[in-house]
């Protein structure tokens, strides 16, 4: 939002360091491990309290996996995750359960993430059953409160999900995520399944709730224009790595990484006057497989500005301007060049594939 204070003074709510999530590839009857899908490969970022961090990228870049690992829906391969000061990378399930109310998730497809055999009241009330000891009347009150908060009619509490439209179903999902007064919500493509006119309704709702309840969002999306609207800072992912992280306006006005530049330039503009004269950067080829990423920079196979060094050395993710991070050899001064060999050597020995 335009009127929010600068994030400088704010506390870090989520700290992610060197996060890796590899899924094993197995073969043969013995299910022997023959390789890894490197869905998330060495990702680090912080999310400040009350802010929205947008996480954008194309399908298969690992953005959803990243969102899920942060909530420990998967056990990470390496790295650390701290939420609200507590390290949750290694905590056992019982302790984790106690921490769950503070961190919630809104899923992409409201059709698939709501149980069709449960009423709206039961869906929204389920987290309350699990994590609180409210009396029946208190619980019902809380359910009504939540339904009001997300703009659902109280009279529909006993209806089933199929009786609602897509936008309303997403509101049910949001109410469920809010039930336990969370601090941090991962919104995984919450508007991707909705129509344009409904998307705006849901995004406005998410913003209202954030202002009222001081929520912190990780907003995962492939819709760059919507992320520009909702996010305070934006991280761009490509093939398991964050290639650029910057405050929203800086990123959209002056993208630094060649991938961010190409991605932004590929988004069509709803204005024929601009669209007919605009020059696009057209990337050639497809995204390589995360099971076998190219050596050096992940983007070197498609990058229009590729240099020799990109095919050999993985560019470090570093701060190039205050608050702006990017992983690209173009923005490297000679003094840091010596450091770049180390992480690549480190990762290749560690993978041992």
């Amino acid at each position: 939002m335009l009127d929010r204070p600068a994030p400088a003074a704010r506390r870090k709510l989520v700290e992610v360091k060197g996060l890796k999530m590899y899924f094993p590839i197995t073969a043969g009857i013995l299910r022997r491990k023959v390789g890894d899908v490197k869905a998330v490969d060495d990702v680090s970022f912080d999310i400040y309290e009350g802010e929205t961090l947008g996480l954008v990228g194309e399908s298969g870049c690992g953005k959803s996996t990243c969102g899920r690992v942060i909530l420990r829906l998967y056990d990470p391969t390496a790295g650390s995750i701290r939420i609200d000061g507590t390290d949750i990378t290694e905590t056992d399930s019982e302790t984790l359960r106690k921490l769950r109310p503070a961190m919630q998730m809104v899923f992409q497809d409201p059709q698939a993430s709501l149980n069709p055999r449960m009423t709206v009241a039961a869906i929204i009330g389920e987290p309350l059953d699990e994590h609180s000891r409210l009396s029946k009347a208190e619980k019902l009150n809380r359910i009504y409160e939540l339904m009001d908060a997300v703009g659902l009619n109280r009279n529909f509490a006993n209806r089933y999900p199929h009786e609602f439209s897509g936008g309303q179903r997403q509101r049910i999902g949001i109410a469920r995520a809010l039930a336990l007064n969370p601090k941090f919500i991962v919104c995984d493509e919450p508007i991707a399944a909705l129509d344009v006119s409904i998307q705006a309704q849901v995004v406005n709702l998410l913003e209202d709730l954030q202002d009222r309840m001081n929520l912190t969002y990780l907003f995962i999306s492939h819709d760059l224009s919507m992320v520009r609207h909702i996010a305070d800072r934006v991280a761009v992912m490509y093939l398991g790595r964050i290639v650029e992280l910057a405050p929203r306006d800086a990123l959209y006005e002056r993208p630094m990484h060649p991938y961010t530049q190409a991605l932004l330039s590929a988004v069509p503009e709803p204005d024929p006057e601009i669209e007919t004269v605009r020059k696009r950067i057209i990337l050639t080829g497809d995204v390589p497989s995360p099971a076998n990423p190219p050596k050096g920079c992940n983007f070197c196979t498609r990058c229009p500005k590729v240099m020799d060094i990109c095919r050999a050395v993985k560019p470090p993710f570093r701060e190039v301007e205050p608050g702006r991070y990017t992983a690209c050899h173009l923005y490297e001064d000679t003094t840091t060049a010596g450091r770049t060999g180390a992480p690549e050597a480190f990762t290749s020995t560690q993978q041992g594939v």
Partner: protein
Amino acid sequence: MPDGAAPVLDVKDLKTVFRTRGGEVHAVNSVSFDLRPGELLGVVGESGSGKSVTMMSLIGLLPTPPADVRGGTVMFEGIDLLNCSEAELRSVRGARIGFIFQDPMTSLNPVFTVGFQLMEPLRKHMGLGKRDARVRARELLELVGIPDAERRLDDYPHQFSGGMRQRVMIAIALACDPKVLIADEPTTALDVTIQAQILELVKDLRQKLGMAIVWITHDLGVIAGIADRVIVMYGGQIVEQAPVRELFGNPRHPYTRALLRTVPSVRGSRTAKLNVIEGQPPIQKAEPAACAFRGRCAHAMPRCAQENPQRRMVGPGHDIACFWDPGMQEWQDD
């Protein structure tokens, strides 16, 4: 876009109804439009607005029942596609009218090679022999920019990436040199960088081949970049039709205006709050007797509930189905 040329496709008063357990749903209500040679006609609307069903009904691709194409005429090369034999329809479908569907994974058959699927229409419609068909198939793959075409003919769909699969779909649609190409959300399932590749390809192919294209989408940005003329659909009806610059520069229907305002941009100015069209799109249980948009419209009048507005001209090539008609001053203020 040659104005005044005889249209290649002329649709009049098309009506399609679905019979469901909950009663009838009127999905397409008296839709009329034409397609001129060589033009790209954009069809915009939200899901359920009837844009796909319109195109599926006019070439007989809807399962009947539950669908029932109740009326209208679709003139293509002198025959009425709604009133001709199945054999005639078959000779048109896939040959002189080609299609591209949204999801390239589900519209290609996973158990046949891409080459086989490309050669099928060539052998059926064009009567080519096996060898000639293969040569032509290779040319088509090269035309749509698939590298190493000869070898790729023997690959199966799963061996192609999403963008490459959509290129294969385009190659199949183009196989018999269609006069008309109907593309139903062809880039919706693709990532933006791949979408940009496909859009460039289509622009390029249009210049080379000169067919007329109907491009169905909900993405106004895509339409702005490629269409010559645009139809906006809502509730199974055409609510506005205009040349592309006119539509974006001077939208006249309240729905089009609202739709253009809800879409945020990656460039240009950023608003603190998104504009919203409140409410839901309607489900038409009966033939519409009133304006379908009135419940969500900021300019609804008593008349909107009493009769269904008919399309009327508001400028050259520009018509809307709406009673609301303020002076120019209010257009700017709204």
